[in-house]
């Protein structure tokens, strides 16, 4: 909560004068506002030239050490094998393993692997998967409710590497995957769940 007092009052007189000068707001044209809004609208639906929707393998893996990657992958596998929730038999295997062949060969490194995400939210009206692979767009990957109404799932082709994601519940609530490791975005400060796709 903002302190009601003006912090400037604590400064020495010459510094106070400088602060007053620095507080002058620049004039802003409607065109400048329109330019920013337009750029943001385009960026939300279009990946930036230097930021592919599917991150390049080398770039993604470069962010974490190979050991950390293995640990994270093992952690995911551990969560999955233990089965912290019990999906229906028909989707149990699909929910726990990539649909792509388990063996990850070098020649397939640049090909997407279909990953399935499952989330338990019996009371939700809508759930969407959002992440760096779909520009965090809540409309891009709506999840499908299972017949028993307990689980939501979606399959997504993803490039091998490290991906950060979350679930958007009822268009307003951002929920992390309780079964996945967490990662703090160094730029935005927000936490996300981490999925390692493929293996190095």
């Amino acid at each position, binding site marked *: *909560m*903002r302190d009601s007092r003006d912090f400037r009052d604590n400064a020495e007189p010459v510094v106070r004068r400088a602060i007053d*000068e620095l507080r002058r707001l620049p004039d802003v044209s409607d065109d400048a506002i329109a330019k*920013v809004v337009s750029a*943001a609208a385009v*960026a939300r639906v279009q990946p930036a030239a230097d930021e592919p929707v599917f991150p390049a393998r080398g770039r993604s893996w470069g962010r974490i050490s190979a050991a950390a990657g293995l640990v994270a992958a093992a952690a995911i596998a551990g969560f999955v094998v233990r089965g912290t929730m019990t999906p229906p038999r028909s989707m149990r295997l699909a929910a726990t393993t990539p649909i792509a062949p388990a063996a990850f060969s070098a020649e397939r490194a640049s090909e997407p692997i279909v990953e399935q995400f499952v989330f338990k939210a019996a009371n939700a009206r809508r759930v969407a998967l959002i992440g760096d692979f779909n520009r965090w*767009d809540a409309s891009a990957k709506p999840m499908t409710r299972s017949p028993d109404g307990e689980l939501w799932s979606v399959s997504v082709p993803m490039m091998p590497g490290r991906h950060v994601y979350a679930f958007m519940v009822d268009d307003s609530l951002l929920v992390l995957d309780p079964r996945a490791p967490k990662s703090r975005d160094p730029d*935005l400060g927000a936490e996300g769940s981490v999925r390692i796709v493929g293996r190095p």
Partner: protein
Amino acid sequence: MGDRPPGGAVRRIDSPSRRILSSLPLPHPAQTAGLDAKAISRAKLGDIGAFTEIVQAYYARCLRFARAMLVEPDDAEDMVQEAFVRLYRALPRYEERQRFESWLFQILGNCCRTANTVAQRNASRLVTDDALLERIPAETRSDEDALGGWGESVRDALAEVPEHNREIFLLHYVEGFSYDEIERMTGVRQSALKMRVKRASDFLRARLSRETR
């Protein structure tokens, strides 16, 4: 939590754009955060009109901050645009218990620091050529520069304050964030923040006292 803005900092006013777009000579920082309380919630869902309200409410303050932070102040408009683009992309992840304004300035600060690093790296490349250095004339201050006035003196002096001190000084004294808020934004402890602000203030006092004599 619903539509309640983070930290109660966002207030509903009748005409945010008219209020913000006009040039306010010496505004208290808290007076510039006028924004429809539901705008952030609507923008999270992709409402471009609501996002426009956000840009209108904060653009001038962001431009002011970027101009003071950047090694190349002419790049300020581009940097503000970059910050708003990042913000819009990340809005679905925004948790409303965070204070929106803090988040925005955190993103903008990151953009400015990255740009400064690039600018300084490019500048350092220029001075690797000793022969080139010898051909550069000594810096002289023309009469026109000397008559630039108080505003120019302040900006020149601030540009000499180290970036990590300058940023905290601006966030606290110019943008009106409390030390508590800046600690949450930067992860730096309050004692260190106060020291940075003191160092920036001491430098400005020493430099500007000479100007006013």
